[in-house]
């Protein structure tokens, strides 16, 4: 329920609605976009960032919270692990049980590899499960991979690695077909035509969805398929360090059982890192839409073996996170809400930005409205938000649209007694996605031999900004590619003795560069106290 004060303020939204409906707010000019980004986007100021003092990316800019983990010591520092005692011996080790990991495992298995998936939480408790809006692919007659490519590059500020962006768009239709053939229930017309929508920054309606459970639907189908194929999955068993062989090639990992704290050694001919994002590091104190285990472990462990980071300083703040109620603070309000016509409004009930600008621009405009212009709506926890006029959706598309197209959103708010069909909702940007990560080539390979990366912990595909729907796409496209490549490659690989000399070297490197840290990484899980110590 809204407080009395908020109820009063929400009346402004109703008052101005008749003047706004049917009238499109103008899009920003390219110059205005640059202006609002420079002034407000958290990535565009140096506050909150540090420069790495060691490693392959020495001198590169990273968020403080990530930098601290990259400059921390290995959890193995004081451990005597017998690397001759192999607990699991496999062809392909997939680290992470989200969409990228599952896609990679399925393809590697298809190629005849013995695959092991190891994952921090339950299999499928991952960002993939939470994706609501949809997945892009240029498969309609009026669309083409070239048009998709231009949108990807423009959205990414032309910094994307062209080879990766073109691979993404070219493989997109076959990725959708692969999912469809597995039995993913995409939204379709009666004749089988895919129902597609716009997302921020798309020039064609190419967002495919499965109501607002797009990621959940994709994830549960792939998870079922992994089980059908009897691929071994170790749950609650995060990897805490990668292993190399004496030739410096990736050759396995050490995993830790979350309950018993026992460590196990996995020897693998190829390793696919698919550990997802970093939202739970709460860069610059932002709330996050990410799942509980999104702590950038893959970036930290990959960096430790010498894999290169790309665009690690660019983070996506989703313009619309929940600002109120506090119980779901930071949870995602899918972009589909705006795709369907809901518009952002300030405390006076005025629109201040076109509702489908690219995410970075939209988020920056909301931050400006709240923090610079002072036009935000105060929330009981001391923060600010702007209205998202959700009842507009029902006026534009007819009553019942929200229940049909946004069931998860509607349910989430109803649990806290807010009916988004009748009242606008309050939103503020939330830390949503790691645009960069470990640099890959078009088969998901890093410069470290036999180490692949797929999904959100890979870097280069989206440059400095990802468009909605291209992430679910990239986990399938590059997850499959990494799986296929690793599944073909392992046959010729002979592993030498396992070592973690690289960890020793890493510690030496820290020392030589005079980095002091009492922390250990990867983080594995965040610690929350909800203000207990205050």
């Amino acid at each position, binding site marked *: 329920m809204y407080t009395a004060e908020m109820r009063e303020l929400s009346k402004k939204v109703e008052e101005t609605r008749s003047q706004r409906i049917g009238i499109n707010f103008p899009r920003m000019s390219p110059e205005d976009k640059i202006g609002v980004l420079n002034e407000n986007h958290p990535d565009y100021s140096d506050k909150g960032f540090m420069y790495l003092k060691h490693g392959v990316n020495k001198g590169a800019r990273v968020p403080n919270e990530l930098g601290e983990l990259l400059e921390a010591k290995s959890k193995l520092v004081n451990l005597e692990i017998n690397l001759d005692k192999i607990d699991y011996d496999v062809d392909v080790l997939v680290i992470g049980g989200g969409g990228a990991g599952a896609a990679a495992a399925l393809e590697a298995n298809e190629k005849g590899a013995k695959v092991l998936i190891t994952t921090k*939480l339950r299999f499928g408790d991952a960002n993939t499960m939470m994706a609501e809006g949809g997945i892009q692919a240029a498969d309609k007659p009026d669309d083409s991979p070239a048009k998709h490519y231009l949108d990807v590059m423009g959205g990414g500020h032309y910094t994307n690695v062209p080879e990766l962006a073109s691979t993404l768009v070219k493989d997109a239709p076959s990725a959708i077909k692969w999912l469809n053939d597995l039995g993913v229930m995409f939204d*379709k017309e009666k004749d089988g035509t895919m129902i597609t929508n716009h997302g921020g920054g798309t020039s064609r309606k190419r967002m495919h969805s499965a109501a607002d459970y797009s990621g959940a639907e994709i994830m549960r189908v792939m998870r079922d398929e992994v089980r059908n194929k009897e691929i071994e999955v170790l749950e609650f068993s995060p990897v805490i360090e990668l292993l190399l062989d004496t030739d410096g090639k990736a050759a396995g990992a050490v995993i830790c059982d979350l309950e018993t704290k026992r460590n196990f050694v996995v020897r693998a001919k190829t390793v696919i890192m698919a550990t997802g994002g970093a939202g739970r590091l709460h860069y610059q104190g932002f709330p996050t839409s990410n799942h509980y285990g999104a702590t950038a472990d893959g970036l930290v462990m990959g960096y430790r073996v010498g894999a290169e980071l790309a665009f690690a300083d660019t983070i996506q703040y989703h313009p619309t996170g929940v600002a109120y109620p506090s119980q779901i603070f930071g949870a995602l309000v899918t972009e589909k809400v705006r795709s369907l016509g809901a518009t952002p409004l300030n405390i006076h009930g005025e629109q201040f930005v076109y509702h489908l600008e690219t995410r970075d621009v939209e988020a920056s405009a909301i931050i400006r409205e709240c923090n610079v212009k002072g036009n935000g709506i105060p929330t009981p926890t001391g923060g600010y938000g702007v209205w998202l006029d959700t009842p507009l959706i029902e006026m534009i598309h007819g009553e019942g649209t929200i229940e049909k197209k946004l069931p998860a959103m509607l349910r989430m708010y109803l649990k806290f007694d807010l009916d988004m069909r009748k009242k606008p909702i309050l939103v503020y940007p939330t830390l949503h996605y790691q645009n960069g990560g470990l640099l890959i080539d078009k088969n998901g390979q890093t410069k470290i031999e036999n180490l692949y990366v797929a999904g959100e912990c890979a870097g280069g595909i989206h440059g400095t900004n990802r468009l909605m729907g291209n992430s679910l796409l990239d986990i399938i496209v590059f997850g499959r590619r990494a799986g296929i490549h690793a599944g073909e490659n392992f046959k010729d690989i002979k592993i030498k003795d396992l070592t973690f000399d690289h960890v020793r070297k890493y510690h030496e490197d820290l020392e030589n560069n005079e980095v002091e840290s009492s922390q250990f990484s990867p983080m594995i899980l965040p610690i929350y106290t909800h203000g207990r110590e205050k």
Partner: protein
Amino acid sequence: MSEKKMIDVYIFGKKYTVPSSLTIMDSMEYAGYQLTKGCGCRSGFCGACSTIYRVKGDKELKIALACQTKVEDGMYFTQLPFFPGEKPLYNINEFEPAMDTMAKFYPEIYKCIGCNSCTNGCPQDLNVMQYIAHAQRGEFEKCAHESFDCVSCGICASRCPAGITHYNAALLARRLTGKYIVPETEHLKNKVQEIAAGEHDQSIEEIMGKNIEELKELYNTRDITK
């Protein structure tokens, strides 16, 4: 402000005083737990956080998602480990949906006694008994739509006297629907073929060959469909 009010809850039988504004999950963390189980998306999507609770004075045992439910004064709760559920193996490419498909993989669904416990427990407010009834009758598409918002939390299965694993049976119905029952997508098939035949190679190479200034120009003047 009511947000600051403190209340008593009992976690695994032990009393803790926590702010009334928290969810069940947050209250465990406030009490000092670091969760390693029963916690995933924290947003109502993954079904990891099924929790059994009872409020003092009320005899009924209730089940909810810990991340989506506010604490109440006098709440006793304990987390449910993921409920073991039957999952037969199948190759989705090897059979088409038929009247006896469900009977083959999930024969126990025919033992439903209509007690409605599954529906009453579902945190997603799904009509679980109804979707099982559709499955029994081979109405896969109806089962698929009725069960679509399932988060596989396993609460229904934990209560079913007939030993049914509802969420897995529904998953089979959905996969059959997505793969076989809904018509094939012509434009998708065509585009995949065009790309495989190399029909788009040239246009992509052309655009990849542009320098940034040319790309910017193209991007800023591209036509955007309504």
